[in-house]
C-alpha cells in the first residue's frame, strides 16, 4: 500500500496505527525493514511505533550505539540502525543472532548495509521525499503482511 504523510506529526501518528496492527499479530514476531534517505524520518516512524506500544521515554537515534532495546508493556522491541556498518559480518558483534530467535519486534534502519546477513523482512517500509511531505510504501510477503496491510487500510 502507498500513502502520503504531511509533516512529522502525521508520520508519528501513522507509527501509532502501525503499532496497533503489529500488536494484533504479535506472537510470531516481526522483522521490519525501514528504507529511506537521511532525514526522511525513519527514526520518527520508529518513535511513533514505540509510543503506540506504550513506551513513554525518549527514543534516541541508534546511529552510534547501533542497537537500542525497549520493552514497552512487556513486549520486546529492538531498534537497529546499520548506517555505520561496513561489513555484514559485523552483525555478529551486535549479538543479532540472539535477538532473532526471540519473539518481538525488530525494526531495522539501513537494512541494505547488512546484505543477506539479515533475515528477510516480514514487512518492508520505504519512505521517500514527496514535496514537503513523505510517501510511504508498505509491502510484505505472505498472508500476515497482507492481513496487516488490510487492517491499516481500514
Amino acid at each position, binding site marked *: 500500500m502507498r500513502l502520503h504523510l504531511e509533516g*512529522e506529526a502525521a508520520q508519528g501518528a501513522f507509527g501509532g496505527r502501525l503499532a496497533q496492527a503489529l500488536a494484533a499479530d504479535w506472537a510470531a514476531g516481526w522483522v521490519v525493514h525501514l528504507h529511506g534517505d537521511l*532525514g526522511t524520518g525513519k527514526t*520518527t516512524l520508529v518513535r511513533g511505533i514505540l509510543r503506540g506500544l506504550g513506551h513513554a521515554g525518549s527514543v*534516541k537515534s541508534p*546511529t*552510534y550505539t547501533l542497537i537500542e532495546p525497549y520493552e514497552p508493556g512487556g513486549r520486546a522491541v529492538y531498534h537497529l540502525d546499520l548506517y*555505520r*556498518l561496513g561489513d555484514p559480518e*559485523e552483525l555478529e558483534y551486535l549479538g543479532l543472532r540472539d535477538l532473532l530467535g526471540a519473539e518481538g519486534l525488530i525494526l531495522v534502519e539501513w537494512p541494505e548495509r547488512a546484505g543477506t546477513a539479515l533475515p528477510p523482512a516480514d514487512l518492508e517500509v520505504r519512505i521517500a521525499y514527496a514535496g514537503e511531505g513523505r510517501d510511504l510504501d508498505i509491502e510484505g510477503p505472505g498472508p500476515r503482511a497482507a492481513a496487516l496491510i488490510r487492517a491499516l487500510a481500514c
Partner: protein
Amino acid sequence: MRVLGIETSCDETGVAIYGDGEGLLAHAVYSQIEIHARYGGVVPELASRDHVRKALPMIRQVMEEAGLAAGDIHGVAYTAGPGLIGALLVGSALGRSLAWAWGVPAIGVHHMEGHLLAPLLEEPAPEFPFVALLVSGGHTQLIDVAGIGRYRLLAESLDDAAGEAFDKTAKILGLPYPGGPELAKLAEQGDPGRFRFPRPMTDRPGLDFSFSGLKTFTLNTLRAELAGDGDPQQTRADVARAFEEAVVDTLAIKCRRAVRETGHPRLVLAGGVSANRRLRARMDEVMAAEGGRTYYPRPALCTDNGAMIAFAGWQRLKAGQAEPLGFHPRARWPMETLPPI
C-alpha cells in the same frame, strides 16, 4: 600510585600513564579514522580488530616513553562501557589480564566519567560542584556534578546527539568522514547572516535537547537553495555556518539555564564536540555574563583518549575501589549508578 589507562570503546585506541604528584607521564592515541573513512562510518569489527593489533605495542611505547618497567605500574584502568561491545571486550580483557599478571588491582572505568573528569587534568582544575556538558558523537548530556561518582543527570538529547547531528549534516553537505571538524572548517567561510536555523526546544522551559529536526531542516534548506541560482559552494558554507550557529546557540541557552538552576558558577565542557572553537568562545561569553567561568581540556583530551581513563581509574583505585578477577564490559551503562568515592 601510578596507573596505566586503556581506552578502546569506539574508534580510538588510547593508552596513558598517570601518577601521584607526577601527573600525566605519557599518552598515545591511535585513531582508526583512516580505515573508517573508506566506509563512511565507524565499523565495529574493524575497530575491535585494530584495538587488538594496536593496544599492546602502544602500551610498550608509553612505558618506554615514561621510562617505566612493569613493576613501576601499581594499577590498571580500562574502559568497561558504554560503547561498542566488541571493542570494549578487547580493552577489558587486556587490562584485566595485565593487572593479574603484574599482581596489581584493576578497575573498569565509565567512558563518560573519563570525559567528565578530563578537565581536572588541566590547570586550573574546576572545583566541585559544577555543571558539565558532555557533547560527543553518541552523547549530549547536562550533568550536575557534586563530586566524583556523585552525578545527577539534568538533561540529555531525546534523539540525535550533537556530534551525530554534526556528522550527518556534514554528510548531507557532501563532506568526508569524520564530518564535524570539516563542517566547522567550511562554516568559517559562511555568511552568518544568510540563513537562520531554529534553536530546537529553546522556546519552552526545560533542559533537554533534540537535534534530529535540525538535520532535516538543513536538508530541506539545502535542497531548496541548490535548486536555484547562486554559487553552490557558498551556499554549502552558509548552510554549514547557520547549522553550527544553531547547535552552538542551543547548547549555550541550555547551559545558561542549567547554571542558573543549579547555582553552580562553573561549567565544564567535555567530549569530542567540546573541541569546537565557536562553542568554546560562546560558552566563555555566557559564563562571563553569569559571573562564572568555563573549563575544558586541551583538544587532545576532548576526543577519546587513554589519559582520561588512567586519571578516572587512578581516582577510584586510590580511594580503594578495585574489581575482582573477571571483567564485565557494558554497551549501556547509566552514569548515575556509579559509586561515589
